[in-house]
């Protein structure tokens, strides 16, 4: 069990360190074990250094940098162990448009192995989707699903 954990951890750590500079356009990040000699009780530490900046505690990162770091870790885990499907509810709300495009690009890479259901109000994410479903409340308080044309959004 400890072996499988270590193997998985090392896989995720490797993927995390590889994906981060692609997601951020540079910089570096690491996952480390707090107790490398005690695999049963160890925790996992995260360090993230956006491009050109000094390595500082996670709390000092900006709202968008934190979201992107967490999204990077998600993709790292999905790379090592693709979940059958993944539901993301507005995870990119704090990303600027340039970062949304990078995020959307990653969705397109990973969707071969993982089905994505992405709730969003950001255009950059919508145009990356294969299809869009709209939720409406024509009758107050009652939700209804409708199909939405991708072209409609691509032109906004």
């Amino acid at each position, binding site marked *: 069990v400890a072996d499988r954990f270590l193997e998985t951890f090392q896989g995720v750590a490797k993927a995390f360190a590889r994906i981060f500079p692609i997601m951020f356009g540079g910089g570096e990040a690491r996952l480390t074990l707090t107790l490398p000699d005690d695999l049963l009780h160890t*925790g996992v530490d995260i360090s993230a250094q956006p491009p050109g900046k000094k390595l500082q505690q996670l709390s000092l990162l900006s709202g968008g940098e934190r979201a992107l770091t967490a999204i990077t870790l998600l993709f790292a885990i999905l790379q090592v162990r693709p*979940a059958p499907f993944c539901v993301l509810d507005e995870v990119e709300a704090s990303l600027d448009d340039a970062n949304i495009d990078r995020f959307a690009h990653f969705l397109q890479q990973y969707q071969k192995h993982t089905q994505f259901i992405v709730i969003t109000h950001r255009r950059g994410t919508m145009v990356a989707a294969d299809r869009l479903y709209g939720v409406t409340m024509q009758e107050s308080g009652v939700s209804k699903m409708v199909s939405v044309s991708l072209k409609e959004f691509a032109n906004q």
Partner: protein
Amino acid sequence: MGLTRLQLKGFKSFADATTIEFSPGITGIVGPNGSGKSNLSESMRWVMGEQSAKGLRGNQMADVIFAGTALRPAVNMAEVTMTFDNRDHALKSALKTLVVRRALYTDGTSEYAINGKTCRLKDITDLFMDSGLGKGSFAIIGQGRVDEILNSKPETRRDLIEEVA
């Protein structure tokens, strides 16, 4: 394994029977504030065995039952059914298609079923164990919760990796 269909009736703002077909790739869900998008993702967590009412933004589990509107009366039952293509057996079952159903009545009665056969909640959660979709799953990220992993304890993150190991 693929999610192929989601059906809701009486779950939160989805008063009427609703069916959504899913295909491989990326499906975007869009709509105005308060239209019901997060309710959709919560219906999936619920049918997969979520037991925390607070985790579904309520005080008690009965809060997921459609409570009525100015023009419509409340209903007495919430029901969600999820259909999976399990030919790769990513879920712990020999079956190729899995239909998971959960219902809750206002009198507190719960119903659970797999492929039409009544079962316990535990049978449903066992199905998703070790698939990355189990309890504490990283695969369903709720609104406003994306950077929770950065705030969580090092031990909690370890559990996350343990879950998929």
